[in-house]
């Protein structure tokens, strides 16, 4: 049965929201890390400049990268939360329900987007409070869309990995060998101009690179590629990632 069941998606989303609001420590922890990055790196590299740097300050350059980072981590975490549910047994309750696997994946994506966007918007709000201003307020809309797409991409990717793993040990493996390289190759902290050409070629396959560059285009008004190009590339990545996630999740059909 391939039907998409709205009520199942809704209740999975609701569960995620309730868990988010109840896990105070997780909420604060996931907010503090990116804010520390932003504050310490922003201040530490305050006087750093490099040719063609978008934005006037390094902290301006950094903000889209940190937004991307925050969404990357929280989304991958949501994708991998299948492992968490398996660990605590709740996955069985989900898997035995008469609900299509597609609906389950969509429900998890809906929950994950909410969580990551909540964090990203909190970071953005703090930045605004400390004086950051986007080039045009109206450009917040494409920025929001980009953030949603980044989130979808990495939830899909996280689900694909989680469906192929049995236990929590895989979690650290994915974090260290997939998530961190994706983060560093994205150009979130520094431009990749001085890297060897093969590294830059690999970075072309990093969805987060398009996300971060797109956010710079939207928020700072200057970027390597155009906003439209970044949006389209990221949309393709997110579709692929969701398809992959659904496919693996259906195939594993595991407890």
């Amino acid at each position, binding site marked *: 049965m391939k039907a998409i069941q709205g009520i199942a998606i809704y209740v999975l989303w609701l569960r995620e929201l309730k868990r988010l609001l109840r896990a105070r420590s997780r909420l604060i922890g996931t907010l503090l890390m990116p804010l520390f990055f932003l504050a310490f790196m922003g201040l530490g590299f305050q006087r750093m400049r490099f040719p063609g740097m978008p934005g006037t300050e390094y902290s301006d350059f950094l903000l889209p990268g940190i937004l991307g980072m925050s969404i990357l981590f929280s989304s991958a975490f949501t994708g991998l939360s299948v492992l968490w549910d398996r660990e605590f047994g709740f996955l069985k*309750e989900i898997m035995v329900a008469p609900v299509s696997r597609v609906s389950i994946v969509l429900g998890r994506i809906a929950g994950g987007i909410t969580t990551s966007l909540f964090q990203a918007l909190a970071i953005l709000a703090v930045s605004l409070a400390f004086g950051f201003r986007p080039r045009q307020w109206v450009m917040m809309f494409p920025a929001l869309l980009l953030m949603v797409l980044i989130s979808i991409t990495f939830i899909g990717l996280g689900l694909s990995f989680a469906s192929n793993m049995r236990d929590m040990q895989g979690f650290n493996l994915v974090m260290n060998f997939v998530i961190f390289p994706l983060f560093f190759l994205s150009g979130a902290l520094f431009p990749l101009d001085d890297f060897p050409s093969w590294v830059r070629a690999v970075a072309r396959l990093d969805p987060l690179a398009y996300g971060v560059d797109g956010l710079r285009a939207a928020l700072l008004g200057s970027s390597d590629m155009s906003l439209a190009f970044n949006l389209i590339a990221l949309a393709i990545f997110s579709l692929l990632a969701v398809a992959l996630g659904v496919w693996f999740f259906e195939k594993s059909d595991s407890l």
Partner: protein
Amino acid sequence: MLPLKTVKSVIKVKKLAKYYDKNVAVDQVSFEVGDGEIFGLLGPNGAGKTTIISILATLLRPTSGYAEVAGISVGGNRDALRRQIGIVFQEPALDTKLTGRENLQFHAMMYGLAKHERRERIERMLELVDLQDKADLLVEKYSGGMKRRLEIARGLVQHPRVLFLDEPTLGLDAQTRRHIWDYIRRLNREERVTVMLTTHYMEEADFLCDRVVIIDKGRIAAMDTPARLKDILGGDIVNLAVPEGGEPLMNVLKDRPWIKASRLHDGQLSLTMVQGDKRIPELMQTAVQTGTRVTAVNLHKPSLEDVFLHFAGRSISEEETGHDAQFRFVRHGGRR
């Protein structure tokens, strides 16, 4: 109670088999469960009980054979079958960051219950397992017994035809276990739901089940009501203490057709018979007639433990300590 002749079957299993590589978990198992029965799968860990339940709940595909629940084949429309069943797993499957009621709400919505029906069913199920007062506490604050009750309630929310309980009292203390038994009987009666449970506790199968299948190494060793299974052993053993000798009494009794075996040893006359409790008056009468002085009487009822011993050639608890875990679906140490 043997309702198969009169009541239609709600579970049918024919020559069901499940192999893992070359290991046999379930081997050519056939049985039927009547509507409204409490049916027990009894056997040691690793006997294949959980595998059978997993197949019937469409969580595992059988290697060969046929199985159906509520008229739907396990290879057929899985979602339709899943709507007909409730299942309580061996390990807890609750979201501990949600309250008891929220866990039930999640479940009811996943099963597509309409809003008013949802509210009504959830209240009714909470009442059935006496959790109304604790319904709005986070599940992480629940005791082991409360979690179990909540899971049983959850399994019933969608009005299933069959409720599967995989080791419903594993790891619970004796008192809590008795309570869970009472709840299972109550729900079987009040919700008119067929219950299929696995257990390796003899008393549990004996106390709860209308019929029991004894499973050993993936095969059915015996299947009947607990009482009849115990009768297979030849019945009860009645011991008469006869300190002044019991020869004359034994010689008279030996000829009675209902005495299966008799033995005189150490001033004790041991007699095997069906329904020994009803024969004691007659035994005492005969003793008086033969002038035998009897100073004590005791009756030993055979337990399912003895039955298992009889069929498997070893005791079920011996199995417990063995390394027989290859087919268990216990992923972590978190067994209750």
